[in-house]
């Protein structure tokens, strides 16, 4: 209320500057109100009608740069703004033809990767949409037009350098590696052993590089079992790899069998090595037909194999599609719960979490080291190892620790971000696309929801990661492997997302975070506790309330400020009292006044 009565001529107010530009609508060309990143260039702009699914048609002007699509409404109060990085665009379609009748039936329909669609109506005269369609297609899908990602043009400056966050050697050293049982090998330095693995690997001390080469021959895409994490106390480890190449004939490989035994013995355990195959049993069997398979009991008598029943990338993609159908644009009114159930989205989340809990518990109980794989070991495997690590190692629950975790288990170990997301690629129906990383972040969110004091980062942190998973503003998630990233000189030519985040950490910090060392954190993978991440999946819907800032958090921040203020004043008081030792009771503000101040708060 107060703001509306402030004088209109306050030129600093953003609100007023918008109003001013609205008044002289002819001056669009000089308009500098459009946010622009250093390195971002204007391409075109056009009058359109934004077909808002919530508030109906909105007249506005759309601006296209090499990074974003920006729309601002005209003649509306409040001003409607759309700010969409072109990277989130999955598909652009023309709707209606030149002869289409009916109001606003001619224009563009844009499908986004972040759970929304955008629809713009254009004037039918003079093929007005052809230019904008072409410009959009070119800049939204640069890879299909031999253009570089915006990340390579981005000239932003940050106080922190996110590329410094992850140094594999430092991370392994933090885990106490190498030690007398585990060694660091540089066998993959030039990606000769495995082109989807990082250059630096940790393997059993008792396995020679020659052994590794032999094992590689028996593992899909040479993704041999390597160490992800070691328990600081019981020395049990989490290993990751791809499926063994057993095939229809049930092939065996002595080197692989021996290698797994060496792993089993490395923590001095007598019991069996536990192998978690993330796939459903039937799929693992079916994989034999294409040369894959799983570790049989005969060949690996010292290992115990469990299937975790997590489905493949196609099932997950379909599930998310169904989820979008029930939340966008309108939230399913009747039968919300059964609709949600029929998407299976939370059921998949439950299975992934359940699998990760099993992995973590096995390692933590100290009875056994575990080996995790799926088919290729870059989707479900990454989900499981990184979630188990998050449960077991509180370091990964800090902002920097989580960045390291993503950088290590996902980026360096070759989760195929380029294929799964389809960065800058126009082929929207590509069967390689799948929301595996989104599903992982959802699992993390579920954990943070169940344990609101256990994570240093907040919900905004997770949402920001997902936004830039698509935006192509940073090099972080570009390309499929470290090998390609090195070739494209990503760290030299682009910025890291962690630079943005670490430069304004307070924005992403959970005030309730309580540091706790060495506490295993097991979420409850029950539908009673899992919920749909409304603030992410339904965030475009204005009807869904998003309490920003969260009132509980706000209250806590107020109290923190009050405490700090009191502590400072108390210190001052103590100093004054100590300096004039005997009589000072008459000095300074009355204590009762402060007392009443606090009480009104409570």
């Amino acid at each position, binding site marked *: 209320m107060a703001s509306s009565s402030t004088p209109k001529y306050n030129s600093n107010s953003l609100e007023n500057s918008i109003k001013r530009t609205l008044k002289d609508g002819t001056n669009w060309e000089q308009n500098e109100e459009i946010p622009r990143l250093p390195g971002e260039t204007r391409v075109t702009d056009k009058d359109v009608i934004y077909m808002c699914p919530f508030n109906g048609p909105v007249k506005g002007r759309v601006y296209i740069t090499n990074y974003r699509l920006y729309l601002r409404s005209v003649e509306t109060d409040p001003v409607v703004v759309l700010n969409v990085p072109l990277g989130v665009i999955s598909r652009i379609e023309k709707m209606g033809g030149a002869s289409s009748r009916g109001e606003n039936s001619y224009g563009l329909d844009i499908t986004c990767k972040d759970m929304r669609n955008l629809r713009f109506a254009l004037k039918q005269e003079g093929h007005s949409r052809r230019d904008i369609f072409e410009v959009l297609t070119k800049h939204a899908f640069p890879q299909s037009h031999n253009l570089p990602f915006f990340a390579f043009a981005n000239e932003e400056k940050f106080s922190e350098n996110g590329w410094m966050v992850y140094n594999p050697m430092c991370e392994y050293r933090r885990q106490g590696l190498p030690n007398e049982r585990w060694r660091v090998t540089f066998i993959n330095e030039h990606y000769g052993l495995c082109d989807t693995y990082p250059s630096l690997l940790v393997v059993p001390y008792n396995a020679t590089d020659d052994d590794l080469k032999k094992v590689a021959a028996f593992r899909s895409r040479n993704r041999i079992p390597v160490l992800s994490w070691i328990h600081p106390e019981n020395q049990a480890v989490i290993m990751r790899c791809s499926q063994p190449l057993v095939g229809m004939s049930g092939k065996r490989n002595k080197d692989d069998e021996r290698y797994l035994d060496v792993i089993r013995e490395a923590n001095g355990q007598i019991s069996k090595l536990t192998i978690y195959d993330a796939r459903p049993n039937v799929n693992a069997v079916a994989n034999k037909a294409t040369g894959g398979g799983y570790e049989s009991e005969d060949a690996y008598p010292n290992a115990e194999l469990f299937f975790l029943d997590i489905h493949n990338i196609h099932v997950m993609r379909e599930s998310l599609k169904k989820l979008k159908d029930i939340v966008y644009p309108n939230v399913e009114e009747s039968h919300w719960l059964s609709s*949600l159930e029929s998407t299976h989205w939370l059921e998949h989340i439950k299975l992934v979490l359940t699998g990760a809990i099993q992995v973590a518990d096995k390692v933590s109980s100290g009875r056994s080291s575990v080996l995790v794989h799926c088919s290729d070991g870059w989707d479900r495997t990454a989900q499981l190892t990184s979630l188990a690590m998050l449960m077991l190692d509180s370091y990964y629950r800090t902002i920097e620790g989580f960045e390291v975790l993503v950088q290590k288990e996902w980026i360096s170990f070759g989760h195929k971000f380029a294929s799964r997301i389809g960065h800058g690629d126009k082929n929207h129906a590509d069967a390689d696309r799948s929301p595996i990383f989104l599903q992982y972040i959802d699992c993390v969110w579920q954990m943070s929801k169940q344990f609101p004091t256990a994570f240093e980062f907040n919900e905004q942190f997770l949402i920001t990661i997902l936004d830039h998973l698509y935006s192509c503003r940073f090099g972080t998630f570009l390309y499929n492997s470290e090998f390609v990233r090195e070739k494209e000189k990503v760290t030299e030519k682009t910025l890291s997302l962690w630079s943005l985040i670490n430069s304004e950490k307070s924005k992403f910090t959970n005030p309730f975070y309580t540091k706790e060392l060495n*506490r295993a954190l097991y979420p409850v993978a029950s539908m009673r506790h899992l919920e749909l991440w409304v603030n992410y999946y339904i965030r475009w819907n204005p009807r869904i309330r998003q309490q920003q800032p969260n009132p509980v958090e706000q209250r806590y921040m107020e109290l923190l400020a009050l405490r700090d203020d009191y502590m400072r004043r108390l210190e001052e008081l103590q100093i004054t009292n100590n300096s004039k030792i005997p009589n000072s009771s008459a000095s300074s503000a009355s204590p009762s006044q402060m007392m009443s101040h606090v009480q009104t708060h409570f």
Partner: protein
Amino acid sequence: EIHIKEPIEKEVNPRLLPGELLLCEANMVYKYIQEDGSNRGTYGKLICTNFKISFLDEDSASDDNEPQFKNKIIGENDITLQCVDQIYGVYDEKKKLLTGQLRKYPDKLIIYCKDLRVFHFCLRYTKEEEVKRIVSGIVHHSQTPKLLKRLFLFSYASAAPNNTDGRNQTVMFDTLEDWRDELERTKGNVKYKAVVTNEGYRVSEKLPLYFVVPICVSEENILKFQGRGIPIWCWSCHNGAALLKMSTFPKEQDDNTSQMQKAFLDGIYRTISNPPYELLKTEDLSSSLPSLQDIQTAYTRFKQLFLIDNSTDFWATDVKWFSLLESTNWLEIIRRFLKKAIEVAECLERQHSNVLLIEESATDLCCVISSLVQVMMDSYSRTKSGFQSLIQKEWVTGGHSFLDRCNHLHKNDKEEAPVFLLLLNCVWQLVQQYPPAFEFTETYLTVLSDSLYVPIFSTFFFNSQHQKDTNMTAESLKTQSGPFRFLTVWDWSVQFEPKAQALLSNPLYAEKPKPDKSQRKTTRFKHQRQLSLPLTQTKSSPKRGFFREETDHLIKNILGKRIGKFIINSSDEPHNSFREFYDSWHSKPVDYHGLLLPSIDGPEIKVWAQRYLRWIPEAQLPGGGTIATAAKILDLMEEVQSLQVKMDEEHSQAVSRDVQAVPMLRNSARLSSLFPFALLQRQSVKPALPTSTWKDLEDEDDLVKRDDEFVDLSGDMS
């Protein structure tokens, strides 16, 4: 197999309340700890009194690990007779419901409680005689029809004369002054008056002694049909529009009578649709809301989902959890009541019209809607004493038949319906959507719901004020030893120590800033919301004027025609006006002291986890849940307060410097999400793992079978 811990024959004495009598007991009863498949548990004595069933744990005497949140009346192993929901006997692994006479006695007894606890007692090691006595005793005293006078309420009240006033700021609405004050508080006194017509219950035994009606309604009218067909005032909105309720006439066979009733109603409507009264909208709740039977059926199914025998049960129902939840219809019922309350609020707030809630008795659905509307529109109802006064006004004095609806006496199962629980479930939705808006916590609502089954308070154990008054008078004559007075549930000190009571108050709540005295002349405190509402609000007044003229005109000319026709039934209103009101409110920032509308979209209506999941070990989050953040806030508040004390000491140069340390911080990481109810002592370090997760994705068979990548790996090997 049982890990037999040698039972020690040790006399454990039951802790009995004044007036409580031991009826039967059995020794060597083995109580299972409901945690896993293992048969872990403890031996003890199972007793049944005229108040409760109680398991006396042999270890409990030595247990000095006092929980922070303890009920002084009902211990961890106590079940009041009214709290028993169902009793099952297990005969050779088969469960059988126990109701009346028993021929065979079971090996195991399972007691399901209305507060959702589940007890498993093994009777295999108990003497046969004792088994017979305890099982038939428990079944008889908790499951068979009972006389009102046999409720523990009466023995307790006569054995423990209560001299405490127990009012603690809660307005009981049993005096004329209480009603007059309420009229004044809501500025309803211009057009409405409190009447004494029902003194001596001349009008009706269902109506309270005092109530409020429009000024123009005469005593004669009130008396004519025992108060039926009379608009009774609930509350006045800041803009003068009022919320009214009315009980309808029973279905009449006789044409003459029904003609008379119709004419009477027409007269009443005519009077109160005229100036100074606002446009009147009627809301026939029995036609626009689920029936009592629907509510009862839904809740019966719903609660069953939480009365879980073991871990296998828990995970078996987890796979289809959402559709199971939906099939109970309970959440949908909550949604529909919230939606109706929003509709009523829209009429009052935006259209400035009076709303008349109509229901046969006006004491069930009316109570839910009128209470919800007040919680949403009157921030006073969101304070603890305001909420309690509201319950007194609409429910206790208002004549909700608690005794019948809770089926406390097991007289008639058909009358049972959890109407009051429905209100608490609806209010909980608001509490969790707007944490800073309420002075009380969800824990408060949970213990209030538990108190429905504690028969030492009169609050929830009578059908009407009349029933309570007459019984109280009779008892007073009998005892003759000082004043006979029942306890009220609002005296929380009866159940909880101050430390536990602290958990009932919301640390996030900020009191409404007191309006500056100098500004008092501006008559009404305008809510922020109200100011920000769309302009259509002003348009409604000419419409109203027009309507009135039209009404007068019609009455003059076509007298006798059914007046109901030109009274707008708000359910006929276009859906848009609701949606517009709802959307426009939700697009503005929330004023926690102003109008509060619940979000009712699918994902926003949730299960009240604290109440329903609190005893289920599998659902426990050690160190997690909302309690984790709440505990941090409480810690910080304590710290701030102690700093304050220190500062005061510095000011006064007190000697005792340094002595006062920061109070011991709660270790929030160690609290369970089930806090403050179930205790963590039984917690194992093992994570809870689903035992049945696999479900076929029938419809996606082709996808399921596909490989992630279409690469034939066998080629690599040749």
